[in-house]
């Protein structure tokens, strides 16, 4: 493996980071807070979601620490409820939903379509401010005592029985939701209207396709969550409403409305990750993504099917057998486009010239973990097994495999992959490979035992459990510690690399995307002049011709 690398860096003795770039164009706090530049907004987002990730992570650490022993000893049961609720809310709405789209997506989208900026730069900035306001509201909620409804705001628990800060938590999610709507709206408009000459739909990188699909979900799903949470808040304030059976309301209606958003939301979280994986797998196999069109359409198919499966969260909540049957069948359908992606990536690897730089390690980890997460989803989508497995740790393990094993792995893959473009400097390769490996081991140690715990019948959302489950829980907590180290490492060495990393040059990976054909870090306008797209996406022969020409001309 030692010689097998595609990285070529410029001669470090003479190389300089370009003096004029988006980071150095203007200075001062205001030039950041009032910026319209998508790359700067992406940077702001990156800092803020990392902050929330570590808060959510700390809460997860406390949860695992409590579960180290069967007794309810570290925190009171009430506090435990608040811990997992705040963990869920922060991780879902303040990390996973904005993670790839608002950071990597914001940074790349205009460059990938060959534009100077997103279509609506001010709206983009507004979306960051809404995110921050929502985040501050959530932090305030946490400081004054938190909320213990679970991230799902289940009624009538949330509207009637609890004495915690449901309204401020709901409004915080409402505000953050609008931030995500605006990001999605901006992406859709940009992809439709801002493509450079020659950039046809089927020349777009797959990252753009998958973000497009996620944007559709954001734009259509999030408003439904907004009105649902508004109704929950009204119901709580005025003690009259449509969800609480005590007033003649229907708690199932809440479930339908909530999951109408929150099921598509899991595709909002994972689809952009798929995009990252497509880019990374192609670059480090030196091959065009196998079945480009199929992968592109499978993103859209996931977005469409994603809207028709929400009731599989409600199989045991009293929906009719017939609708359970229909929703179960529709759920199986989603497996098809997801499998198309995994197979196509596998075929891309086949006979490719594979190298194992850090982004590729994360991407390969993603493929394995997401496949397990996806397949266990089929267990839960089948009505028969779901009755046994639902509300157990099996569910917890399943969605952590998809969200953490899937989305977080792809997020880290993307951050490493585009770090040289973003900052102009390389991250240190060896230690980051170690971090990728640590994450993978820690992740499996944390969450695989939870599948077994779930099948054995350990319920989720309890602070205490019968002693016979302790061994597996100790494994899980130990794994969480390893995982924590795996996530701390990138923070440390990426920060280090800002000053001491090797200078990356324009295209250290020899990747084909338009973003790699400009300087790193890019100019505020991205390209010196608007590019003209005259080749297919992932055309490595075109790249080779370009590079040969450049050498010849120098």
């Amino acid at each position, binding site marked *: 493996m030692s010689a097998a690398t595609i990285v070529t860096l410029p001669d470090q003795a003479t190389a300089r980071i370009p003096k004029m770039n988006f980071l150095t164009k203007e200075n001062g706090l205001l030039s950041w807070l009032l910026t319209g530049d998508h790359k700067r907004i992406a940077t702001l987002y990156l800092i803020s979601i990392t902050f929330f990730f570590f808060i959510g992570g700390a809460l997860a650490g406390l949860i695992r620490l409590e579960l180290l022993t069967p007794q309810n000893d570290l925190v009171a049961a009430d506090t435990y409820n608040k811990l997992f609720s705040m963990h869920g809310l922060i991780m879902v709405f303040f990390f996973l939903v904005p993670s790839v789209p608002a950071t990597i997506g914001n940074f790349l989208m205009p460059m990938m379509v060959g*534009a100077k900026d997103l279509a609506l730069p001010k709206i983009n900035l507004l979306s960051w401010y809404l995110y921050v306001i929502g985040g501050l509201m959530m932090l305030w909620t946490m400081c004054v005592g938190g909320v213990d409804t679970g991230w799902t705001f289940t009624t009538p628990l949330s509207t009637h029985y609890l004495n915690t800060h449901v309204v401020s938590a709901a409004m915080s999610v409402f505000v953050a939701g609008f931030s995500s709507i605006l990001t999605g709206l901006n992406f859709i408009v940009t992809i439709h209207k801002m493509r450079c000459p020659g950039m046809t739909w089927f020349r777009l990188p797959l990252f753009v396709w998958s973000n497009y699909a996620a944007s559709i979900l954001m734009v*259509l799903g999030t408003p439904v969550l*907004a009105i649902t949470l508004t109704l929950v808040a009204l119901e709580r304030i005025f003690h*009259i409403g449509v969800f609480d059976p005590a007033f003649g309301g*229907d708690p199932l*209606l809440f479930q339908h409305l909530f999951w109408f958003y929150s099921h598509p939301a899991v595709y909002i979280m994972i689809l952009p990750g798929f995009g990252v994986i497509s880019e990374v797998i192609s670059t480090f196999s030196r091959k065009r993504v196998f079945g480009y069109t199929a992968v592109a359409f499978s993103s859209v198919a996931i977005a469409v099917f994603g809207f028709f499966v929400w009731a599989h969260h409600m199989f045991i909540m009293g929906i009719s057998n017939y609708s359970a049957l229909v929703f179960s069948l529709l759920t199986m359908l989603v497996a098809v486009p997801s499998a198309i992606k995994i197979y196509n990536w596998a075929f891309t690897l086949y006979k490719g010239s594979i190298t194992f730089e850090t982004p590729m390690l994360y991407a390969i980890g993603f493929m394995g973990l997401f496949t397990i997460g996806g397949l266990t989803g089929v267990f839960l989508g089948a009505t028969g097994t779901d009755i046994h497995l639902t509300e157990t740790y099996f569910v917890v393990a399943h969605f952590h495999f998809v969200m953490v094993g899937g989305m977080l792995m792809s997020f880290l893959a993307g951050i490493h992959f585009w770090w040289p473009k973003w900052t102009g400097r390389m991250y240190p390769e060896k230690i980051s490979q170690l971090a990728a490996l640590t994450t993978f081991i820690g992740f499996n140690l944390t969450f695989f035992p939870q599948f077994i715990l779930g099948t054995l019948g350990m319920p989720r959302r309890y602070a205490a459990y019968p002693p016979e489950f302790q061994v597996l829980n100790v494994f899980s907590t130990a794994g969480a510690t390893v995982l924590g180290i795996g996530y701390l490492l990138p923070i440390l060495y990426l920060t280090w690399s800002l000053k001491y990393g090797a200078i990356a040059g324009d295209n250290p990976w020899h990747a084909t995307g338009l973003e790699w054909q400009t300087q790193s870090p890019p100019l505020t306008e991205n390209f010196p002049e608007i590019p003209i797209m005259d080749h297919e996406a992932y055309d490595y022969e075109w790249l080779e011709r370009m590079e040969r020409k450049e050498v010849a001309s120098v």
Partner: protein
Amino acid sequence: MSDSTAIAQGASAGAAPHGEHPSYQRHHFETVGQQFDATNFAMWIFLLTEVMFFGGLFTSYLIMRNWYYRAFVEGSHQLSILWGTANTTVLIISSFTMAMAVWSAQMRRKGALLLFLGLTFLLGIAFLGIKGIEWHEKWVKHHVPGIHQYSEQAFLNPASDPEVFKEYHDKPLSPGMAQKTEEYFFLYFAMTGMHALHMVIGVCLLVYIFIRARTGAYTNGHFTFVENFGLYWHFVDIIWIFLYPLLYLISRY
């Protein structure tokens, strides 16, 4: 490309802020047409999100109405069809004046633009005023659920409310069903309230547009903002066109 040429070209691109294109064209757009297309398309997508937002409310309404149909019918009898119709008319006329305002902006007629914007503003205020009168009526009759001692008297004993009884001759509701009229009024206030909130935002934006239009901002060929605001105004209008029969005319269709 080497870094030095990139810098040189970047610097020259930055040095010529407004070349041959008009001042209102933002730098990241290639042409004015692209700018108009993009913002217009963005507005349509925003309205799509609004459809989904109100969609959640309409779904809740539909389910509750199916469950508690009689409570919804008698609840709706408490609304004044006269005021409701008047408000519908006001809004439809305001849509017309708004459309005329957009046309005036496109035709670069500043006087006409100001006139029609002003008319739209007045009609918007009129709508909110009438809505206020109706809400006040509900408040006086204790038909505001949640905050002002809800009274079921008019539904348990319709004859106690002679004005409404004279017109509809409603039969008394059972205590259980009479309680569900609260559900009706909750949705009534939630839906009309959400609609009124959109109207208030619209009226505020109208003031902003009016002030800018006085300086000739939209009659120089750059009417995008007026046009997009027009779309918003018509959308809020259409929401009312659905709310009116759903809330006022339940027993009449």
